[in-house]
């Protein structure tokens, strides 16, 4: 108890407690794709941050790859008719 109080006193102006930070870290852990594989035991926060960085980087790479495929597809197909069909199927 006293250790937590002294820690919050050390952090000075920020009133965020360690509990809130660990809550946020566990929520981040739930977002990771591996959360489904292992049991939802708490990973150390450094591990969560590392996995989050890797996940964000892989998502960036995937966006690059998908935009390349999209640009190739847009070159070949007719935009307007395909677009109408897609909008219809996506929004209904």
């Amino acid at each position, binding site marked *: 108890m006293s250790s937590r109080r002294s*820690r919050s006193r*050390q*952090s000075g102006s*920020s009133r*965020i407690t*360690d509990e*809130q*930070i660990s*809550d*946020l*870290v566990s*929520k*981040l852990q739930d*977002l990771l*794709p591996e959360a489904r594989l292992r049991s939802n035991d708490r990973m150390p*926060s*450094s591990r969560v*941050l*590392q996995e*989050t*960085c890797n*996940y*964000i*980087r892989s*998502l*960036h790479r*995937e*966006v*690059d*790859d*998908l*935009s*390349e*495929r*999209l*640009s*190739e*597809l*847009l*070159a070949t*197909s007719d*935009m307007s008719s*395909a*677009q109408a*069909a*897609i*909008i219809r*199927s*996506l*929004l209904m």
Partner: protein
Amino acid sequence: MDTKSTPPPRPHQIPNPSRPDFLACWAAASPSKPMLAFHFLRALSRIHGVTTVRRRTRTIRRAAYSSMARAASPRRAWSRALLGQARARRSRTLTGRAVLLRRRRITAAAPPQPSSPASRSATIIAARGEISTAAARPLPPRQEGEPPRADALRRLVPGGAGMEYCSLLEETADYLRSLRAQVQLMQGLIDLFSCQ
């Protein structure tokens, strides 16, 4: 590349009423799929006459990040940072072109180039949203309890440099959700396109 099946939708977490409002509003809505689709498709429909595959890829990637930022709530710092980057890129390209035109009028010998190689590489890096091309700000450690890994995270999340550790975690989660929704949307579009 093997086709990726879309992951099943996650059940929404019901915010605990006993927790402070700070956490309750954070566990709120995931990005709206129709808004994401609307912004992205509108950006795609504006692409015409760009012939090179490489330039079209770059335009589509930028459109993906911009539409992701527009579909998100403007409360989000990463959304504002992405839109600010896009705006800066557009104004920088315009000023670059104005400088080139002036130089061309003076010399009248240089071959016409769309953008100088230096600015092009800078825009590519900025488009990735990973490094800020304006004077590289030293990332100050905001709190003592902040782990060293947060430095890499700050560089990855747009606008993450000037945030406190707590807001950084919050923004990261929202950015992750939006990124995932954007990837799902693009994958779905590709599937639809290739079936036609």
